[in-house]
């Protein structure tokens, strides 16, 4: 097999936060980039959720965090609609609020609960659930999923630190140790 450096470069670029495509917390120009591919119904992603929050607090504006959808629909029956609900909330300007509510309520992600969360967040719940039911955000979720499949996602959650997959434990200490390593970004 031939080594194709352009392919390697474009792949690692794909795994950095992208201002126009991604849901981002922090500046895309921040020196440290963390991208998570996650599934709202995955218990391991649920465990990682407060860890990411703690890491964001620790690193402050040195960190740019992006979340991309990777619903494992065969394992998790509500994961796809939950992902689309977060995107639908994003269309009303509250992606991160919905993201947080979903991870804080992983045991209740049926459509009725999704509509309730929309209401609690002050969103147009009827519009949100309508968009979910007719798959208005399905293409967006699929796009995230495909970028993950091509980027080397190997389960959920998958973390990419400065474009490189983190194969260690998704614990606070293990993630932070890699995040603060000096590197050429």
């Amino acid at each position, binding site marked *: *097999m031939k080594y194709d450096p352009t392919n390697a470069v474009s*792949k690692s670029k794909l795994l950095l936060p992208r201002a126009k495509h991604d849901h981002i917390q922090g500046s895309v120009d921040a020196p440290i980039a963390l991208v998570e591919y996650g599934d709202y119904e995955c218990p391991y992603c649920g465990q990682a959720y407060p860890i990411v929050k703690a890491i964001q607090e620790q690193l402050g504006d040195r960190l740019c965090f992006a979340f991309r959808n990777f619903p494992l629909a065969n*394992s*998790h029956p509500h994961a796809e609609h939950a992902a689309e609900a977060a995107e639908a909330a994003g269309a009303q300007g509250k992606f991160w609020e919905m993201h947080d509510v979903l991870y804080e309520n992983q045991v209740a992600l049926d459509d009725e609960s999704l509509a309730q969360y929309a209401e609690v967040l002050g969103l147009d719940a009827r519009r949100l659930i309508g968009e979910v039911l007719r798959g208005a955000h399905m293409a967006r979720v699929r796009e995230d*999923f495909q970028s993950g*499949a*091509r980027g*080397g*996602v190997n389960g959920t959650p998958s973390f990419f630190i400065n474009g490189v997959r983190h194969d260690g434990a998704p614990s606070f200490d293990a993630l932070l140790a890699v995040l603060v390593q000096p590197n050429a970004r």
Partner: protein
Amino acid sequence: MNNETTPGQQPGSLKSAALPAGAVAPDFSLRSTPDQAVKLSDFRGQPVVLAFYPADWSPVCGDQMGLYNEILPEFQKLGAELLGISVDGAWCHTAFSRDRKLHFPLLADFEPKGAVARLYGVYRETDGTTERALFVISELGVIHWSYVSPVGVNPGADGILSALEELNKDPNEI
């Protein structure tokens, strides 16, 4: 394609002698269920992904087979058939497959144990299981790409997708 994917040269798998790109893929017939067998040469004319993995019932969400199950539509778009292989028996595979709702066959390299894994150079004598090894086989039955992952690291699907895309671009290339 990354140069660190050269077969048999990955850190952690130095002893592996996985068949490299260009080798003819050895034919085999293995049980996929207690009463059904799958023969590799039955898929001649389309690319085949052979995914050897150590064991059924890996305890994580989105383990390697679960992940490939989700990515299966992408493999199918590229015309490929996916076959999982481990040394587990057909009854074990049936239960695992049902539990994880897998939509592709799992083959039992069970008796003689690991015989097909040995043919492909990916049997682990010390563990009695196979390596975590991937082979993308062309429609002509020739290995186009192979990769052995450190046994504890799920390799994901990016290498498979790139290899299948290359096959789709140039069907005559081996």
